């Protein structure tokens, strides 16, 4: 029996194409979810399976990146402030325009809670990832 060729170039190229295909599918599903939620204003019960799949894959990717130690930045509150502020502002805009929350006190409270939660999540991810990186350096 002839030995099967394991050509690294073919394997690498196939992986690259699979990765591109996955990226297109991932962002396609994201756009579909946003369209259904904010343009068609469908209830979540009509697309919960798609949402579950999307968030499941997202959490899986995040968990794998953390467990593999791919977040190489040391936990640093200063560096995560700008993205957290942007995320909190976007959250507040969505809260005001689409969810119809017009109470200023609630808007500010929700924004602050989201901001703190967002910062805490990223810090936790960076902390676990840096722990993993430190473990790799041990024998």
């Amino acid at each position, binding site marked *: 029996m002839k030995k099967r*060729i394991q*050509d690294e170039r*073919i394997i690498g190229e196939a992986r690259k194409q699979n990765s591109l295909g996955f990226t297109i599918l991932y962002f396609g599903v994201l756009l579909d979810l946003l369209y259904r939620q904010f343009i068609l204003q469908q209830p979540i019960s009509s697309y919960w399976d798609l949402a579950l799949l999307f968030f499941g894959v997202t959490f899986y990717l995040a968990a794998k990146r953390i467990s593999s130690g791919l977040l190489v930045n040391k936990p640093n509150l200063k560096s995560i402030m700008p993205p957290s502020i942007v995320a909190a502002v976007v959250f507040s805009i969505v809260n005001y325009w689409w969810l119809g929350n017009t109470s200023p006190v609630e808007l500010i409270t929700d924004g602050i809670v989201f901001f703190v939660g967002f910062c805490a999540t990223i810090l936790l991810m960076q902390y676990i990832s840096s722990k993993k990186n430190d473990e790799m350096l041990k024998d």
Partner: protein
Amino acid sequence: MYNIYYILCWGVKWGLINRIKLARIERGLTQQQLADAVGVTRQTINLIEKGKYNPSLKLCLAICYSLSRTLDDLFWIKENINEKADSR
């Protein structure tokens, strides 16, 4: 220190240069024979010889063993990849 190194190297095109074709012809092998010996397709050998594909270290070593050469003989890195390979 690394930052200074990257700034100094900014804009310089690094490329992996090889002398596989010459070594292969000296050994009297065809691309297909070399490809069979190292377990890849002929297209991969062709692309490596033309400098259009950077092989992994494992494949580099397999090629070296097949051609009875050292890694240093067959592969090196050059700053300006547009220069000819045989000007080493």
